[in-house]
């Protein structure tokens, strides 16, 4: 790590950890964001040239919202490193489920900064503030040692070590096969001991797990306080189940109320995550039951999310759907401002993800990129 980045990362990590869940006032976020931007402009030649072409430099930015974003797909195009690229500690790669093209790469200079972002956020939303290490984590993902390129496995592995007191395990092989027997035994054991657990995985894996259970007419009655975290449900082309049915099925098969099921919205390109936490909100207090429709994804204090008009890319007022653009200070070592392909709506207490931007009906005749990448007829 370069000294400049090391001291910035250290300062950010400290600020993340010291935060008690209170949102940062805009001027606090703005000071941090402009400091991060100045660092990225200084140390990331590719991003600096891109920014300069837009007529922007740190001295022209009067507010964080003026910091130029990069599109999420840029992580497929060029390495985005703000610092000494020889010091990159880990390269996380996107799963490439939405096409066989190049995978996105997130070159991470400081895994500790990633941990300092993910741990407090997970603790608040899934574990509960102030509690001792609790809730073994049973993960429907491969173990981080098996898939070092997976940021999700890294995140859950970190949670297992830090938040679950080392208790729990991973129940998917690197080839994507669920260890159904192992997971069943772990769930039965937790039930027998009355230990509330955190069951975490991708929506895709959960759908397969639910099918396996349903074929056997099997289910669990997990101890009260158990939590399910599902992620990735918004990506990809089609979801096998609609969300209400999916949650009802998860709830019924595990004995966890729907309020105990939380969606994590995250992406390899961002080192912070968003939870539509109903178990615990951003302040660490239990949230009253809300309908799925009314749930909001809540950014941690070190992230701001703007909703942009898809055509003009100007900011939209609350309530109007547009493209989600995130400003994530945990991305200090890459690029902080990332424009996604996800449509969402902002509210005063967070945002709601509407799904991947896609047309009302498939377009014929001329070829869209995804169709080509999904397979060429011989």
């Amino acid at each position: 790590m370069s000294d400049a980045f090391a001291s910035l990362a250290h300062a950010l990590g400290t600020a993340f950890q010291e935060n008690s869940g209170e949102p940062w006032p805009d001027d606090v976020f703005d000071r941090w964001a402009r400091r991060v931007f100045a660092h990225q402009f200084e140390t990331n030649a590719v991003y600096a040239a891109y920014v300069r072409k837009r007529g922007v430099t740190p001295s022209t930015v009067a507010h964080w919202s003026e910091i130029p974003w990069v599109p999420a797909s840029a992580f497929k195009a060029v390495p985005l490193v703000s610092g000494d690229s020889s010091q990159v500690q880990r390269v996380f790669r996107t799963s490439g489920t939405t096409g066989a093209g190049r995978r996105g790469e997130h070159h991470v200079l400081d895994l500790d900064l990633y941990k300092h972002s993910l741990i407090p956020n997970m603790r608040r939303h899934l574990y509960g503030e102030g509690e001792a290490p609790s809730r073994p984590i049973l993960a429907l993902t491969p173990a981080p040692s098996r898939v070092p390129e997976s940021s999700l496995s890294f995140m859950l592995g970190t949670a297992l070590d830090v938040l679950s007191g080392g208790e729990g395990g991973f129940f998917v092989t690197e080839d994507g096969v669920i260890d159904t027997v192992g997971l069943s035994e772990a769930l039965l054991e937790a039930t027998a001991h009355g230990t509330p657990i955190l069951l975490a995985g991708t929506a895709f894996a959960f759908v397969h797990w639910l099918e396996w259970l349903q074929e056997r007419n099997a289910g669990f009655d997990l101890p009260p306080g158990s939590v399910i975290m599902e992620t990735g449900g918004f990506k990809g082309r089609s979801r096998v189940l609609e969300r209400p049915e999916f949650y009802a099925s998860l709830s019924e098969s595990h004995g966890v109320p729907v309020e105990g099921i939380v969606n994590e919205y995250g992406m390899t390109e961002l080192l912070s995550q968003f939870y539509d936490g109903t178990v615990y909100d951003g302040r660490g207090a239990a949230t009253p039951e809300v309908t799925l429709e009314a749930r909001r994804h809540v950014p941690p204090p070190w992230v701001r999310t703007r909703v942009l008009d898809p055509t003009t890319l100007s900011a939209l007022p609350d309530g109007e759907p547009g493209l989600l653009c995130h400003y994530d200070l945990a991305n200090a070592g890459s690029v902080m401002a990332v424009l996604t392909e996800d449509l969402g709506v902002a509210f005063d207490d967070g945002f709601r993800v509407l799904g991947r931007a896609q047309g009302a009906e498939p377009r014929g005749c001329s070829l869209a990129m995804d169709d080509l990448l999904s397979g060429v007829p011989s």
Partner: protein
Amino acid sequence: MRTTFDACRLPSFSSESPTAPPTLVWETIDVSESVAIRYPVWADGAAGRLLEALRGAGARLAEVPVRDLVKWVGRVADRFLDSGDPIRHKAVDLMVPTAGLSKEMATEILIGMARDWTAERLTELLRREFQDPAVLDGFCRLDEGRSVRARGPLLTFHVGAGTVPGVSVTSMIRALLVKSAVLLKPGLGDVVLPVLFAEALAEEAPELSDAISVTYWPGGSSALEDLALQTADAVVAYGGNEAIGSLRTRTPVTTRFIAYHHRLSVGLVGREALTSEVAPHVARTAARAVSMFDQRGCVSPHVIYVEEGGAVDPGEWAALLASAMADLEAELPGGTLTAADASAVHQMRGSAELREASSGSRVRVFRANQSFWTVILEDEMGFTPSCLNRVVSLFPTPDLCRVADALKEVGGYLQTVAVEGAGDRLPMLAEALCRAGATRVTSFENAPWPPPWWHHDGASVFAGLLRWIDLEETG
């Protein structure tokens, strides 16, 4: 206040028809702030009666001479081409919101399409496709010892894509010329022209008014769809691979199935066109080929390969193309994009601009600030499909003849190749392109507008629709 357009034109159920008009329930979709589309929801009973009426009309249509069909369709084409005819204005005004096009582009497309529906062009089409078009009316003795006749299906079911307005009308006209009754389910972006065409044709030729039915429904969702697939003698389907695949599996094996799946097109500019005199002109025709239909047509180039070693190098030609794209944006402005289409442009542009910003990169990005046109000059040979809506990638190549190799990976999708400046290498190049899968080699100028008799995706115009009957002379 939204105008409601009925995406539906049903047969008149004339007194000769034994079936009474069905009672329909309607649904509405808002397609823009100014226009909503209303379409009937088909129950099994109504769907069955519609198809029965169409088959009856198909039987009567078989007795109508082909020259009358040409004449009547031609009259409708003349009305669309007449800038004083109210149908022309109605068509353009509704195409803008339903197809997401600018008014200028909608007009350009309507004129370009309707030109090929005139009696003159249809006569020429029949003349090129048939030794004697009278084979459509009865047996003709065309050679020694044999008479032949060609018959079309009683009823064809057309499923349109909605990408380019007018394509569905062309498809209906082809079926009508071989005397088939038509049921069309247009794509949402192409609902206007088929309905107006069918209405106008019924006015010009009341004899045909019960032989055409146009009705929209969201694909895969209607009782009429399954019944039509079972009832029609031929199915003509345009669309994405998934949609075509689904229709194909639900069509009986004994029914003729003609499919136009995804295709893409490319351009090639050789050294001979890269002189200071010619290059700007080629850039203008290329800009028009890319921008026409806002690049949503199967004939629209996704990428252009530019040969190195000419007086104008690929970088300079990219700048010429960008300038022509900007001019064309003023003449034929781009349309309204869906959130997904707009997002795809931002992603593709932004990624290219980061590659441009990388040290030592020769990638260059030229783009509009207030609209979507984008020219990306790449630095390595390859192929990148466009996100469409006027985004084109340029690949420099040391030798035009090497391009065919780069295209092999997309061969299953390749359609039109616009070639300029190949000089006397053109015959050899055309052979290589045809091996790579291309079905049409043309100029940028002609690329958007293939003639009615083109071998669309490599097939003859009427081959899939016709049944030939040989009457051999007996002693």
